[in-house]
């Protein structure tokens, strides 16, 4: 057995306050960059993006694949702006602001480009649980119906088998779609790739931008591109650890809590009757903020605010799904 513990004298008294409040080393100040957006002068720190400059001016730029905590992947092209002197439109989410730039965010060319992007998405993807994108479609006058009548949904698993290199000639009057049956292979969340706009955010969240599990990636080419587990195996056979951080960043409802999916199927999902309350997870000692979405005194979904220093919007399986023990059975 250990010897009797002799407490050092300071054990009985709190140490004195430090003279100065401890702070991180000061960051090197970034020089200001001056540019003109929509005729207005704006100044941002070096390294800021055009989207940051727009935000500073209060301009409402549509985005889909952009996320405040993630590296831009530039895939949706809906945030494009016109940069004087540039041959093509530039994605504002990733283009770094430079001194002297002259930018237009709402020119005819910009609007036409955004409309086309939204129209192609709306003609091929089910946006029924993506109200933000629907709103943008209305705002930009997208008319997806002009791309033809929707093609029938693919049979279960068929899109997962498509190999690169095959070119499918478009059929006149038929709008290609990613429609396919919902993948339900576990009790926690479902994957409805009929609703996937390929924004890559789930791949980033599963990968090195948050969870570092790498259970999913983009497979296929062109219109056959899709989010897939390795060899398209069910989630239960994949590397997935059910953190649900992919659900947290999905902008279209393609990835959805099974509880939400089932309630929508049953017609009982009612966001107007839901209350969101922030609290702290009851599991380990990290202290993650949970936003509990409660309907009829029952937790129907758990998220975390993206701006919290601890979680950055991410949780683990226990925090996101481990709430059944408090669901009232009485």
């Amino acid at each position, binding site marked *: 057995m250990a010897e009797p513990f002799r407490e050092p004298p300071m054990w009985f008294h709190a140490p*004195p*306050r*430090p003279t100065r409040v401890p702070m991180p080393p000061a960051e090197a100040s970034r020089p200001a960059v001056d540019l003109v957006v929509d005729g207005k002068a704006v100044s941002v720190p070096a390294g800021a993006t055009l989207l940051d400059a727009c935000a500073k001016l209060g301009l409402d730029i549509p985005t889909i694949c952009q996320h405040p905590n993630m590296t831009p992947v530039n895939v949706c092209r809906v945030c494009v702006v016109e940069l004087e002197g540039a041959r093509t439109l530039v994605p504002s989410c990733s283009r770094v602001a430079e001194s002297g730039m002259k930018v237009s965010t709402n020119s005819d060319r910009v609007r036409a480009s955004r409309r086309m992007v939204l129209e192609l998405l709306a003609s091929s993807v089910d946006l029924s649980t993506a109200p933000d994108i629907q709103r943008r479609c209305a705002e930009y006058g997208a008319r997806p119906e002009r791309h033809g009548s929707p093609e029938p949904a693919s049979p279960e698993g068929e899109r997962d088998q498509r190999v690169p290199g095959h070119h499918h000639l478009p059929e006149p009057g038929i709008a290609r779609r990613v429609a396919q049956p919902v993948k339900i292979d*576990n009790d926690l969340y479902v994957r409805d790739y009929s609703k996937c706009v390929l924004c890559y955010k789930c791949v980033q969240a599963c990968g090195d931008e948050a969870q570092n599990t790498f259970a999913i990636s983009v497979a296929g080419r062109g219109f056959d591109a899709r989010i897939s587990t390795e060899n398209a195996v069910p989630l239960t056979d994949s590397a997935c650890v*059910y953190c649900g951080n992919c659900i947290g960043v999905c902008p279209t409802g393609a990835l959805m809590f099974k509880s939400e999916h089932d309630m929508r199927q049953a017609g009982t999902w009612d966001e107007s009757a839901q209350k969101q309350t922030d609290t*702290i997870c009851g599991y380990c*000692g990290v202290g993650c903020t949970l936003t509990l979405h409660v309907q009829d005194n029952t937790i129907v979904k758990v998220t975390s605010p993206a701006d919290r220093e601890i979680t950055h919007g991410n949780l683990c399986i226990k925090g996101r799904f481990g709430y059944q023990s408090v669901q009232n059975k009485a």
Partner: protein
Amino acid sequence: MGGGTNSYREIEETDVILLWGSNARETHPIFFHHLLKGVHNGARLFAVDPRRTSSVKWADTWVGLDVGTDIVVANAMGREIIARGWHDKRFIEHATSGFEDYRDAVEPFTLAEAQRLSGVPAAVIHDMAKAYATAKRAMICWTLGITEHHNGVDNVSSLINLALLTGHVGKYASGLNPLRGQNNVQGGGDMGALPDRFPGFQHVEVEAHRLKFEKAWNAPIPAKRGLNLTAMLEAMDHGELKALLVLGENPLQSEADRKHAEKVLGKLDFLVVQDLVLTPTAEMAHVVFPAAAGWCESEGTVTNSERRVQRVRRALQPPGEARDDGQILHDLAKAMGHDWGPFSAKAVWDELRSLSPVHQGMSYERLEAGGGLQWPCYDEAHPGEMFLHSRLWEVPLNGPRVAFQVVRHSPPVEPLTPEFPIRLTTGRRLDDYNTGVQTEGFASPLRRGETIDLSPEDAGALGLADGEVARVISPRGEIRAPVRLTRSLRPGLAFMTFHFQDSVNTNILTIDATDPRSGTAEFKACSIRVEKLNTAMLA
């Protein structure tokens, strides 16, 4: 004051991380996100763990020591650092005491001797010592792999010694960080749920503190510290402690050596349990108070591993007669003749602020506004301390010196013997939590029930196949569990969790050898043998 010295964000900008006795990838997943940012930013990660866990897979170096040899490795690092002259002589001179005694105590721990005792190659210890000591910034993070030993306090001291030796404390992105296993372990200690402390770490045996609280509470307070959990169990056994109020604990299943726990709890004249569900401990109770869930049916605060106090809020109405823990205690006080007035979490908090200087600046309004505040936070203009002990770098030194603690190696209480030749260590998995009371209700696709995890080599020698149910025997008892083969274990090492005690009662096996200072049992080391079922029946 006891608490993690740094904020999580600092690990993203440190240079060397020693993750010691922690499988944070599974037990603290969101902290591990911060740690991985550090790794992606170029930090070197040394993972010190007998098992090759999913955390270890991210490490530059796996330091696969034998269970219970942490002090050997830490002291050998200390010796190597001193021998090579990598220690921070100016810091030691400026802010510490007892260096000579420490130097003499670690002298026998040569790299060769450490390799012999711990199984870690000398070159690996040398490499870790060099990386840690010569880094500009370095952090040590640990969990129960350090503390759940009969000498857990010594284990912690051996790591603190390394930080003092190298000056890796009191600075941004350098420090010592225990990762707390439960959402308010830190807060419980901060609030004085310790046998020798008032809220804010004020010692009960310091008269000024005691007088302050006696005045505020208008009641006399015993001048000597109380009992920790281990001592309480002993007092129950001896019949000195006759009545027990248990709040949100399941000691029957969470204590090491279940048979012993059952025996001493059974000796009580009166057992009251306050819990969300009727745990096996509650089933033994004379009275059960149904409690509301702290994290979603109550108002209040919890404090995390980076000392951050954050608000918990009521999102659900508790079921039936369940009530807020604080309300129950208020009513209990009233029934015993003390009217504390109407219960409100905010009023309790404001009383705490008036008595605990380190919480003084944390008004409910400030806590509501953002992501919480870190103690110490002395007044309402104070932002809270991002990292602790910066006073140690002030010139002249602000306050007392910090003493090196001489610690000696003490192997696990239960040695391996020909009869019990395998070392069993216990821990947790990603999707389950402690005794499973809270997690058993959700349909985790990862859940595979309890298993006795063995190395393929051991299983092969015993003729056991993956999935086969085997007998697991320790000097205290015997259970049956399915075998799971895993390459994360070396021959001679077995692993179990304690998540599924209703089906497989791991704590029948574990040993009730506790550190008298922390009251924590040696869950990480007992001796077992594993047998094939049919062999046993033939015998």
